[in-house]
């Protein structure tokens, strides 16, 4: 399995990293645009313009991350800001051994979990607040509601594995790292989530072929 540069094999979506080709772009000072990790180290060294480049790269993916997980657009925007601020504050701890986006989504997940805990606590004692759906910019409201309804029926971890793969385009290894799961668990959960989503979206479920001899073949 190719684990050297998983992001290179992923298919970028419309809201995925806009300038993360690592070589072609040029920053405001005329220097060759660096990788995310180099930008993060430059920011930790005091170059605030490096963070601006990172922000521009990841503001849409991160906003999409929260927007798909939280129905309220205002809260999604707020959590996006909170995640960037957390990145700012944790910059001195950043180790270049970890991919920046793994670092970013790990923090985003923590922010999301903290928000969910607080929201659940508030709802426990003060009741649930009605959340209105705003029509999406590029997809209509029906698709938005349909997808939210479908993923709400998935197991929580299966849902996260699926979303991280489909929209954040994380590799299996990165998903395993972010969610602290074994790699095989990520594979099996992702397959299970896709199968369930296929059923939920109305298409016939992919039939799972018998794979009893597979282990012997690979062995």
């Amino acid at each position, binding site marked *: *399995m*190719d684990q050297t540069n*998983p992001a290179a*094999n992923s298919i970028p979506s*419309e*809201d995925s990293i806009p300038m993360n080709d690592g070589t072609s772009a040029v920053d405001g000072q005329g220097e060759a645009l660096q990788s995310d990790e180099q930008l993060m180290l430059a*920011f*930790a060294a*005091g170059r*605030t313009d490096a*963070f*601006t480049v990172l*922000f521009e790269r990841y503001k*849409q993916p991160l*906003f*999409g991350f929260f*927007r798909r997980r939280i129905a309220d*657009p205002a809260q999604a*925007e707020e959590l996006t800001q909170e995640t960037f*601020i957390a990145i*700012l*504050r*944790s*910059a*001195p*701890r950043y180790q270049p051994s970890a991919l920046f986006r793994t670092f970013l989504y790990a923090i985003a997940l*923590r922010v999301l979990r903290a928000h*969910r*805990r607080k*929201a*659940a606590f508030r709802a*426990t*004692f003060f009741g649930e607040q009605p959340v209105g759906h*705003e029509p*999406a*910019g*590029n*997809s209509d409201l029906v698709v938005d509601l349909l997808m939210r309804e479908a993923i709400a029926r998935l197991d*929580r971890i299966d849902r996260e594995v699926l979303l991280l793969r*489909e929209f954040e385009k994380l*590799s*299996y290894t990165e998903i395993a790292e972010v969610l602290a799961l074994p790699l095989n668990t990520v*594979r*099996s959960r992702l*397959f299970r989530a*896709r199968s369930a*989503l*296929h059923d939920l*979206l109305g*298409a016939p*479920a*992919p*039939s*799972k*072929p018998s*794979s*009893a*001899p*597979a282990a012997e*073949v690979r062995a």
Partner: protein
Amino acid sequence: MITTTHPVSPEDVMALADGELSGAEAAAVAAHVAECAECSSLAAQLAATSAAFAKWTVPDAPAGLYASVATHVADAGGGKQGSLFGRTAFLRGPRWSVAQMSAVAAVLLLVAAGLTMHYRSRSSSALSSAQMIDGSSLIDPGNSTRGSASRPVPAPPPPPSESLHYKAPQGDQVAVPAQGLAMATLAAPSARARKSDALDAKSTSPAPQVASASPMIARTASLTIVVKDLTAARSSLDSILARRHGYSAQLSVFTPENLLQSAQASLRVPVGELAFAIGDLKTLGHVENEIQSGEEVTQQHADLVARLQNSRETEQRLRAILEQRTGKIEDVLQVEEEIARVRGEIEQMEADQEVLEHRVDFATIDLRLTEQYREQLEPQSATVSMQIRNAFVTGLRHAGATLLGILLFLEEAVPTVLIWLAILAVPGFLFWRRYRRLSAKI
């Protein structure tokens, strides 16, 4: 039932589509998918699901998103991020932090409770032992004013000028003006003279006039003196009493081991010698506390004299009846019984009068002598190993006492805690279930 076996797993087919397989493995799986219609269909379905899912797009990020972040970027610029990092405690596992803090707080609470119980039991035992020591020294509590620095003299309130209460400051010598003493000396006629006055007045004037003739004051004084040598002080005390014509009504000496020696005495001296006796006693050592007071007993004495006079007259009349008249034997016996009763009352009142006049004639000095503390030079000091052993034993004892305190605290608290748990269990469970449900939903 038809069962088809495949050399690759469906997850491998999915991984191939996701580009997660290495070159050789990808080639093998791709070859199988190309040959196997079922796996090919699976790959197509997975791709269709992903394509359908990809239709779920989100609007563009708000334009003002960077505005609030920009201020933090400016703050964090130039390597100042470390100052901001302290506010991101939630990134380090809030639940663990809360759990750890709760555990630490619980342990501290238990230790504090144990120590509190331990020291409470120690202080209560020390207090009870102190009370035992104090109680054992109270040989004559009715006549003692020892330790009355904060306790008023339990006598009827004397005239203000006749009560002196002086608590010596630390290290100062007491010099109390003997104003009350001079008054007492001047206002104290001899007991015999008063007695004769009272007897003379019984036939001429009523009792209230006797009471207003001259004030009768019972003087009392209390001294607490710290002496260097208690034995020498006792010898000096005897000589002072002899010189001032007084006597010791009571004397108690306490010589506890490893504690300060002390003596408690109740002295009686003629009221005319009181000021001189106190002056002599002050030379014994450092005066820590001095109280002087006077109780006016004029009215009490006058009442006693009047009642005595009436009883004597009654006795005389009864005797006259017995001598001059005759009657039945029962009447005679009744008169004799009455005479005996009156005679008993007279003797009782005469005794009371004697005591009262003695209190006026002889002042009472409650004296407490305490030996000055001297550090003992121990001939054989404990060796280092012995000190270590003693410290270890003491530490073990304290640890055991603390554990016992914790146990006692738990024993005390557990029933109450169980009651509260029983009360809060149902609503707590309902809230927890609701929280879990909402957590899964949000």
